């Protein structure tokens, strides 16, 4: 993966993660803020319910006290005087008193707790009031909750009990008001909230027992969803909250807080459950908007990241790419490559260092070339001295022998002169030969490229040396030619190529004085042709392999050290390479790799066509 893509990926991921983190953070903050608001509102509503409960309770208490103190009730108490006699005429009294005092419930009980008159269930006269035992007519007794049984239903009410004054057998006045829609509608409820009251009656949840101040059609069916919460409160008798979703839409959800309402008695029975519902629509919609915004910002951020990363990558990677390109140029041999330095950042420092490095490399290369040149001259001088010293010494001895013969034995001078002259001529010829070889090396011509069939060149070399391979009296050398006939032509100088391969064959023959096997091989590799000349001779040491192509270096006793240098020069002039692999005692193989260079082939063809006056054929 390129650096630019990596940078793009890092940018995109960073932007996406950042947006996600911000969105999550905002979501969490929003959720907590809503939860706090919900809690505050619930607390306020519960407090408001409690205040309204107390206010209504005080109002009920005041009215019940007025009834208990009324002349009618006292007269009734006096008439009954602890008995149920003649109570029939008071049968309808509770109803009229309840109407006049605006109470929903009113029962007049005798001192034994028997109902004399009931406003809410007129037919109940003569029956005992079930809650009589736990009713306390104390003046300090505040209003309390009571589930009142009616003819065909029950009703939750706020009750007070008082007695008529100053009698041995007082009349109990039990009055109250309904906790119903009217009561709930007195609460100041926020628009997204609602208050419901469940009358705890029966074993299982019933939607009919739910009092909803803002009931609409269809609520009864939907109210069944409150059943789990109501049942849970009934089991635990404790406050609890739960979300209730009315439809598949997540916004159609309410958080319901359930508060148990208990009555009088030893066990404080659960009479009702106050249900405060808060719509989560605002929160959910805000949450959705945040998510949408986050997605939008994320998408926009990623797009922006693409541009930014592209720009940044271009800004950051361009110098690096230039550096990479420059490094490749250096690797390719262009040591004078330099990169442009802009700014003072790390990349600029790197570029500067690169330029310094190439400058230093150039300097070192120059020094190395100079040193090699000096070394080459020294080696040349050494070789010249060595080559020249050998014939010079016989020359010197011959001349000294002539001088000595002239002075000491003139009679033999003529004979000595004749022999010495021959010797001198021979050595001079030797010197001439030495100078000729050096001259020949210095006169290595530039290759004249033409279409050359490598296999034909190899066959020509084999034919040339065929006679020398099997010289009678000498160990035979087996020559084997393995040519790839699918090879095409390459652009090369056939004379130079023939000469180079001939030098390699000569070397191989010299390496096999005891005979052996000579192998000439050609094969095709992608965009190049490989020529291999291998022998099974004495082989070379690694040190010899390292220096074998150095001019005037030879591992042979009478070699000039120029043969392989010439081969390397020819191969190099053809744009190819030559390598050697060898193992001492097992043989040596020289491998020449020559590029096909089809563009040159095309140029050659075009040139020949021009010279021949013929059209170019592809």
């Amino acid at each position, binding site marked *: 993966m390129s650096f630019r893509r990596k940078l793009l990926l890092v940018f995109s991921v960073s932007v996406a993660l950042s947006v996600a983190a911000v969105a999550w953070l905002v979501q969490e903050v929003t959720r907590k803020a809503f939860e706090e608001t919900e809690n505050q509102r619930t607390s306020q509503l519960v407090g408001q319910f409690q205040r309204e409960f107390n206010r209504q309770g005080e109002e009920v208490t005041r009215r019940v006290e007025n009834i208990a103190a009324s002349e009618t009730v006292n007269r009734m108490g006096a008439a009954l005087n602890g008995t149920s006699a003649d*109570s*029939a*005429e008071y*049968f309808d009294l509770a109803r009229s008193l309840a109407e006049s005092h605006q109470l929903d419930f009113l029962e007049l009980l005798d001192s034994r707790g028997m109902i004399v008159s009931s406003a809410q*269930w*007129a*037919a*109940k*006269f*003569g*029956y005992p009031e079930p809650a009589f035992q736990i009713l306390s007519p104390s003046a300090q007794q505040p209003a309390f909750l009571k589930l009142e049984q009616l*003819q*065909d239903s029950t009703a939750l009410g706020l009750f007070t009990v008082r007695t008529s004054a100053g009698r041995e057998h007082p009349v109990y006045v039990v009055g109250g008001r309904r906790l119903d829609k009217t009561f709930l509608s007195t609460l100041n409820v926020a628009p997204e909230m609602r208050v419901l009251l469940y009358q705890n009656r029966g074993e299982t949840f019933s939607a009919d027992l739910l009092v909803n101040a803002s009931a609409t059609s269809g609520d009864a069916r939907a109210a069944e969803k409150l059943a789990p919460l109501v049942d849970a409160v009934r089991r635990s008798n404790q406050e609890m909250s739960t979300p209730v979703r009315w439809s598949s839409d997540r916004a159609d959800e309410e958080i319901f807080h359930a508060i148990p309402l208990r009555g009088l008695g030893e066990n404080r029975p659960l009479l009702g459950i106050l249900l405060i519902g808060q719509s989560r629509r605002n929160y959910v919609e805000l949450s959705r908007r945040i998510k949408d915004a986050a997605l939008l910002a994320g998408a926009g951020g990623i797009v922006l990241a693409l541009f930014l990363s592209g720009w940044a990558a271009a800004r950051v990677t361009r110098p690096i790419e230039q550096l990479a390109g420059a490094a490749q140029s250096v690797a390719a041999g262009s040591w004078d490559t330099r990169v442009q330095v802009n700014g003072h950042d790390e990349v600029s420092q790197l570029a500067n260092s690169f330029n310094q490095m190439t400058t230093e490399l150039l300097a070192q290369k120059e020094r190395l070339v100079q040193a090699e040149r000096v070394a080459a001259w020294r080696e040349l001088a050494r070789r010249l001295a060595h080559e020249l010293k050998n014939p010079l010494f016989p020359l010197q001895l011959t001349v000294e022998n002539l001088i000595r013969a002239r002075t000491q034995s003139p009679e033999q001078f003529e004979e000595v002169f004749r022999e010495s002259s021959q010797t001198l001529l021979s050595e001079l010829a030797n010197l001439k030969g030495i100078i000729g070889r050096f001259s020949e090396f210095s006169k290595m011509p530039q290759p004249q490229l033409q279409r050359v069939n490598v296999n034909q060149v190899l066959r020509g070399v084999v034919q040339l040396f065929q006679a020398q391979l099997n010289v009678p009296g000498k160990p035979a050398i087996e020559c084997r030619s393995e040519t790839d006939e699918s090879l095409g032509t390459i652009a090369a100088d056939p004379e130079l190529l023939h000469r180079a391969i001939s030098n390699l064959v000569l070397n191989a023959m010299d390496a096999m004085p005891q005979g052996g096997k000579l192998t000439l091989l050609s094969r095709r590799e992608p965009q190049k042709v490989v020529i291999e000349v291998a022998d099974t001779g004495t082989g070379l040491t690694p040190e010899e392999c390292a220096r074998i192509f150095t001019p005037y270096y030879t591992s042979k006793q009478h070699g000039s050290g120029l043969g392989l240098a010439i081969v390397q020069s020819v191969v190099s002039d053809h744009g190819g390479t030559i390598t050697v692999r060898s193992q001492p005692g097992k043989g040596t193989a020289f491998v020449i790799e020559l590029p096909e260079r089809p563009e040159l082939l095309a140029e050659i063809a075009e040139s020949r066509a021009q010279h021949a006056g013929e059209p170019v054929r592809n």
Partner: protein
Amino acid sequence: MKRTGLQWLAISVLLISALSANADTRPQYGGTLHITTSMSTSSLDPAEMPDSVGARNLVALIFDTLVIVDATGRPQSALAESWQSVPGDRGVEFHLRRNVKFHDGNPLTTEIVVSSLRKANPAWNVTAAGDVVSIESAGAIPELLQELSLSRNAIAKRDATGNPSGTGPFHIVDWQPGKRLVAAANEDYWNGRPFVDEIDIDMGRTFRDQMNALESGRADLAEVAPEQMHRAVSQRYELLRSSPVELIALKFAKEAASAQEKASRDALRLSIERQSMHNVLLQGAGQPSASLLPTWMSGYGFVFSTEPDRLRAQQLRDQIPGVPSFTLGYDNNDPLARLLAERVALNAKETGLSVQLNASATELRLVRIPLASCDPWSSLLVLNNQLGLPPIEAKAHSLEQLFASEQSMLASGRIIPLFHLPLAYAAGTNLRDWTVMPGGKLNVTGAWLKSSQP
């Protein structure tokens, strides 16, 4: 002289006092009598009106029957001057009163009588011969005279459109079906012109509305709920009541389908505590009753115990798996019915029965059944028909057979009697000489209004 003067003075004072007292008790003609009633009917045709005491009162103003029944239950002549049994006891022959005219001016004829009676009694064989109307029946017509005194047998002459015309003491002036009837005195009434010139009847009013109308002077005569009789008396209205002639009962629409249902009905019957309802809800009016006929009518009503037997009711209830339940209907416009139904439900609940109240329920209803007549056999037979029970086969109308028949009807489980209530009326002090028959029938033909002017 001085002594003589004093004597003359004393005589004069006595005469003036006597004349003044005579003026208060002497009937006066004129005025409009305003009556309110709970009864409401859409038709004034006697043959089409549902039987009720209110309907009987209304019919009696416009129409006459061949015979009437007096306070002792004996038939008296009305449009029929005399009657005699058909030889072989196959029916009765009636001789019509002469010179009786309908309100439209047409005379009363045997053909009209025959037509009227045939319409009301398709099963009867009614024929006319001269001035004689004969009524024959394939079987014996029990208590035919009692039957003929019922309002449905009032004689009506129907015109081409079916509108009825009567011979009664008042003729129709304004008729607003179900709401109001204004009737003027029949100047040619065969039994003498009524004292009041006009009667204005406001129909379909609750007892409370009627009392309010009476108190406000908008009505001279009103019906009084039994439980309100004390209040009416305490307010110094003239209160007249009938004998207990209205049966309040629980009526089942069908016979019990199984032994368990029969046991449930018995448990319900035995759970009802009538006395407290009588004392409190009815304020002592009427009589608790477990019989169909009131004691004053049958003489044996006390034999049927009105006391609850909760132990037995519980035993019956325990024989029934599950909770036996009933849905009790009642007249939603009748506050007393609602209270009684609630109390019945409460009593039943104590026994472990479930009684739900639903005013429109028909399977079991709390009903008011006016007894058809002061005659026990007539009342029982009509009641038997109303309940849809098999016809009573009685060879002789003896007391034993009456008791056995009633016992049989009760044993059917179709009806649970609760009370017999009287009908009560209250009138302001300016209405005089109005009477209420033992059967509840209101008689205002001879009533007159005392003028408020000296």
